[in-house]
């Protein structure tokens, strides 16, 4: 197969933001997740937990709570506004000021008898405000009785007639019709961070004293107290079982069980404790089968409950999602430049050089160190949502939700000039892509259209807009690959799972698509059908270990020297698929590089198969092949991310 010179890059200081809030839509099985920087992410739990959509954040937007109403997503934050999002175009649709100071919580009734769906927010000034969700906006309805402290948490009774509010030192129950408080439970000097209201009028609260308390909602009396932690109980999520997250990073499960065999006298019993986080658990979701948790340590953890799923299957494996399912790194193959995308700036680096030769496993002496050429700060308060660098290194483009900018880099030196006259259609983009000869820029724009721009010095000229047919929806998250034709060529057959990476082969014009369920398809654009290899792959099926990987392939590229090679990577490995070799059978060992290394040359041929997987590099953000046949590998070790997090409340030390 051969040797590769690998540029192992670890200077991309990617730092994800802390998870603030989550909301799960049971009907569509989508999880909405809000981060501390205001960014929103939508995960499709039905499709291998794939991160379908990312709405970039905005300075000053601090999302404190999320809620789904049908397919619509609302957020409320400490800036006092309620925002609805346009999930098609990945931007906020509108914002409504609640006029009650910072909003701590938002809650919508799970189902509604009337046509309009009420939605409530709890505000800093002690009011619970009710909004009516209309077709295209929300409208303020009324205030409930004003209380003294701020409203921290809210929960609807399933009957939609009562609502429980967690406040400073107090829990209050409101009658929705009258707006009056009907009962209150008081405790001493605690913040009720979270609250759950069950159909039997049981109220469960998590507070800053580290207690999970179970109250009788009718009488307002305390039924039971569980001391869960010495610190705050921050998040609570309910069903017949209930989970509570603590600021120690543990998640505690409670279940409504009877302590005796006859099934009488059911009680809330503490059953399991998970420790998957090093920092505060700020958001929790209890799905049918799993506990989903997120917090200050920025990782989203899906922990299946083993009594709900079949053991030892892929479904029962715990998943940690640390990296976005799209690439934040762009690489100029010809120029050897790397573009790193941060929410508020871009960094352009030139790779180092080495003239040495070495044996496999060696580190070569670095003759020239990598250098940071440009740090480009974005304009405006919207965060960067996509960026691209042309293969020749001469053009740089980025886009926010509201603006698009294109820059000309002079001879790969430090000089950068903004291209001032841009076509009108190019307002913003979700994905950017340059053609291989750097003469065209493709931008996926609003309403699933793709704008094609010709890049000529010194200006750029609008060429065409590719518009989808009505009803057709283009995947917006997959990287749009280069296509020079300007007419709709053909439509690739639809597959049930979302594509995570696509690419068109430069010589054979085969389209390679990798999906969230790890399937790989190769489609011949010339013959307009799946290629022979793709059919063979589907017929034989992918290796079970390949299918069990839990991070999606985020990039596909090709090796110009070997047309039969497809290079792809996920977070934990990169893989070169050699289409000329036999596919691995179910019984063959998929990860066979170590074995092949130990075998003598003639024996290797017998054990070889198409999937050559390399796990030397971990936590991969990007794997690209440069023109000089060397690989660029951008790693971001999770330990480095951990080390930049603020100190946790409590750290586990040895023998304490």
């Amino acid at each position, binding site marked *: 197969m051969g040797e590769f010179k690998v*540029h192992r890059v670890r200077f991309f200081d990617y730092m994800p933001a802390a998870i603030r809030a989550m909301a799960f839509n049971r009907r569509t099985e989508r999880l909405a997740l809000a981060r501390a920087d205001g960014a929103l992410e939508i995960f499709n739990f039905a499709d291998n937990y794939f991160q379908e959509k990312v709405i970039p954040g905005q300075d000053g937007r601090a999302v404190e709570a999320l809620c789904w109403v049908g397919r619509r997503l609302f957020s409320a934050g400490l800036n006092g506004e309620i925002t609805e999002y346009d999930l098609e175009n990945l931007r906020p649709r509108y914002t409504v000021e609640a006029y009650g100071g910072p909003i701590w919580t938002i809650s919508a009734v799970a189902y509604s008898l009337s046509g309009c769906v009420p939605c409530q927010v709890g505000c800093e000034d002690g009011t619970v405000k009710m909004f009516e969700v209309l077709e295209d906006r929300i409208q303020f309805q009324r205030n409930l009785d004003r209380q003294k402290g701020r409203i921290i948490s809210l929960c609807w009774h399933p009957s939609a007639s009562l609502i429980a509010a967690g406040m400073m030192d107090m829990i209050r129950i409101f009658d929705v019709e009258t707006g009056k408080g009907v009962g209150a439970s008081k405790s001493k000097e605690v913040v009720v961070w979270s609250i759950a209201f069950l159909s039997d009028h049981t109220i469960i609260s998590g507070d800053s004293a580290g207690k999970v308390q179970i109250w009788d909602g009718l009488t307002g009396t305390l039924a039971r107290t569980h001391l869960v932690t010495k610190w705050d109980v921050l998040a609570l999520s309910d069903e017949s079982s209930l989970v509570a997250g603590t600021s120690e990073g543990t998640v505690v499960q409670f279940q409504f069980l009877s302590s005796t065999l006859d099934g009488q006298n059911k009680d809330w019993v503490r059953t399991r404790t998970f420790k998957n986080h090093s920092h505060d658990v700020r958001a929790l979701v209890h799905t049918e089968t799993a506990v989903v948790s997120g917090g200050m340590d920025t990782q989203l953890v899906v922990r299946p409950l083993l009594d709900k799923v079949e053991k030892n299957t892929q479904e029962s494996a715990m998943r940690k999602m640390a990296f976005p399912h799209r690439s934040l790194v762009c690489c100029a193959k010809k120029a050897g430049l790397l573009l790193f995308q941060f929410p508020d700036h871009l960094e352009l680096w030139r790779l180092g050089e080495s003239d040495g030769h070495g044996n496999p496993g*060696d580190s070569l002496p670095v003759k020239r160190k990598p250098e940071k050429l440009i740090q480009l700060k974005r304009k405006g308060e919207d965060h960067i949502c996509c960026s691209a660098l042309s293969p020749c290194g001469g053009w740089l483009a980025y886009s926010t939700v509201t603006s698009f900018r294109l820059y000309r880099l002079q001879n790969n030196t430090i000089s950068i000039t903004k291209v001032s006259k841009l076509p009108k259609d190019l307002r913003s983009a979700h994905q950017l892509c340059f053609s291989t000869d750097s003469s065209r820029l493709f931008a996926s724009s609003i309403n699933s259209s793709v704008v094609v721009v010709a890049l000529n010095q010194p200006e750029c000229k609008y060429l065409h807009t590719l518009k989808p047919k009505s009803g057709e929806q283009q995947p917006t998250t997959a990287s749009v690959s280069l296509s020079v034709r300007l007419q709709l060529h053909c439509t690739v057959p639809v597959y049930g799972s979302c594509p995570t990476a696509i690419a068109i082969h430069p010589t054979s014009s085969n389209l390679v698509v990798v999906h969230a369920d790890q399937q790989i398809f190769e489609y011949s654009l010339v013959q307009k059908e799946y290629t022979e290899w793709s059919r063979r792959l589907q017929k034989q099926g992918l290796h079970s270990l390949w299918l069990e990987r839990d991070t999606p392939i985020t990039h596909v590229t090709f090796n110009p020297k070997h047309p039969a090679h497809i290079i792809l990577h996920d977070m934990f490995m990169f893989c070169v698929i050699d289409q000329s070799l036999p596919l691995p059978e179910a019984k063959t060992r998929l990860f066979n590089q170590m074995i092949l*290394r130990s075998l003598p040359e003639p024996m290797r041929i017998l054990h070889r198969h198409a999937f*050559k997987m390399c796990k030397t590099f971990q936590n991969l953000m990007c794997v690209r092949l440069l023109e000089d046949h060397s690989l660029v590998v951008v790693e971001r070790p999770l330990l480095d991310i951990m080390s930049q997090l603020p100190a946790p409340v409590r750290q586990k030390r040895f023998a304490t």
Partner: protein
Amino acid sequence: MAALYEGYTLCGLAPAQNQSNSGVLGVEAERDSDHVVVTDSTRSVTLYKVSDQKPLSSWTVKQGQTLTCSAVYNPQTKEYVAVSDGKVIRIWKQEHLLLDQAFKATVSADVWRVHCVAGGEPVVLFKRGAVRLLDALLSAPQQPIEEVLAQEESIRWSTNIVTESQQFAIFTTEQKGDHFLYLQRLNPNTLQRYRLEREEPGLSPLSFSASYRDKHIRLLYLYPNGHVYQSVVSERGLVTDEGGQAFPLPRSLLLSLPVGEGLLEAASAQALDEAHIAVVGVPHPSAGSGKDFLCIWNTNFQTLQAGKEIAGKIYGQLWSFWNKLFIPHGKTLSVIPYECPKSSLASALGKMRQVKTEESKAPTSVPSWNNILHEEKALPSRTVETRKTRITRKSQSSSSLTNYQVLELIKTAPVEEVQREVDLLLSRTDIQDLQPSLGQLASTLVSRTLQDPAFYTPSSLAQLVHTRCLCHSVCPDLVLLALERKDYFLCQLCLQFFPDIPEAITCACLKAFISMSDVDAENGSLEPDGVSFMETLIARERGPDGLLNGFSPTSAAEYRSDGLGGGGTRAQQDEEMTSPPPEQICPVGLHKAVLLNEVLQTAYSDSFLLPHLKDLSSQQVVLFLQYLQFLYLKYSQDAFPQTHGLRSPSLSQILDWVCVLLDAHFTVLVMTPEAKGLLVNLHSFVKSQVRLVSELGKIEGSLQELNKMTAKKDVGQYSIEIIELF
């Protein structure tokens, strides 16, 4: 270990022009171990005295006649028998000078070979397979000879074996690639025919050798691919149903010799005894692919025991008589004495220390650079040593006797002489060559000493043990003899150097050492190593008295008061404060301690030791335990022992012995009042050690974390690496 000694030349050869034939038709034993009859392939028969490398007489047939079978010696009639021109049997005695004047008889068919071994009558085997006793044949020389063999079947090899009850003629034949074994019993005559299993197609056996042992005839045969097979045929044989049918002959693979490149061409294997075979014409496994080696293999252990490079062409002929191998090679017939002592596992595999010594005297036959680089020049090797040099060397070392002579001497000579001769023998530089015979020497010495109470040679025995070539199984009585003669120095040496002392003997030593009087013990000298170790240990008795490895006497007292709660401990404690505690004083004398240390260091296995340990009396056990406690305390005081490099028992050995002793005698000790304090003390040690270990476990836990941290390679921010995908 079997050994090959320096060889010497018996006679020169006149090989045929094409060099394929050595020119020797056969070598046969004569009257005793020092005489052989050599028949050359042309016309002459020569009688040699082997040790003198000298021909005694020689007989030649007339020009134009040839000898067609090797001459044999019939010890009963002291006559020689040979066959010339296929059909003429000639019989003569040593005093006949001319062969033509000797007795001649012409028979009616071609003779293949005449065989004669001690204890049997001469047997004549005809080319077509018929067998006759010589006497019967000569009574009617022209009698008709039947044809036994089929058409195209011809004899390849034959021999003659005499057992207690019967005489056998054995021969193998080949017929169109198939090989058959014929077993001809004489008086009454029966014939059995066996078919040899086929090896790979096209391979036929290179050599055969037959031996008789345990009422079975064992046939050994070598194939060109290096496989040596053995087939066993019962002496009594199967019930033969006549019909000439061949039974399949079961075989077992004895050895698979390394053959190097290609197949063997001229090679021969000869059984030496039940476990050893000599092979000539195969490569030495550690010396390339040259096939000119003579090797002795042990078939039980599949090990190469000895090897020797043979100069010149090898013809695949090999005879062995009376511990001598006769090999024609190049233009000489060499005699190579060998020895195959009975192998013990300890000496075959080596055990503990023995391993090192065995390795250091590695194969004597690794070829020199000279031989590899200049193959032509390599010819004058040691094997073709001329008689002259041998004689001169003999005269140089005339004062020292040979091995055998010394052995004979030991049986009768007075102490001083024996001592002197053994010393001389051992002082020779080539002591390594003597190794196989040293065991014999030692056991002869021991048996003489056992028979004769006045005879004892302590220094010779000590010297023998010091060579490290002995082990207990070679001379099993030595240790007990030393104990009996109160030669504690020898005991110590044996315990030190013998890797295989049985537990019973170890216990006997232990018992003797514990119960001997201190006067006895201090008599005589011991190994200085152990003595100086004990001296330093005892000298520390007054050493600094601090917290000992997590255990201090005061804390021990605390435990004791915890455990027992006795009111009398207060006074005892006060006493301990003033004088050194009793367990800090060595309970036995210096020499006794040294000897006990030696016992502690022997190898043993618990289950065999325990029953013998029970023989100790309770007083002995208490004393020994006290001594072990003393050692243990000394060891745990500071980082004392192993730093010295002296011979000393290890801490774990001491603890193991404490455990074994307690196992064997616990009930007795509990009942013995004087052992009570000791046991309580031991208990407190154990307690302190358990605490220490648990603390260490904690530390290990935290240090392991450190280890994990350092194990990660620091990659840094940027590096350029090379990877390879396959």
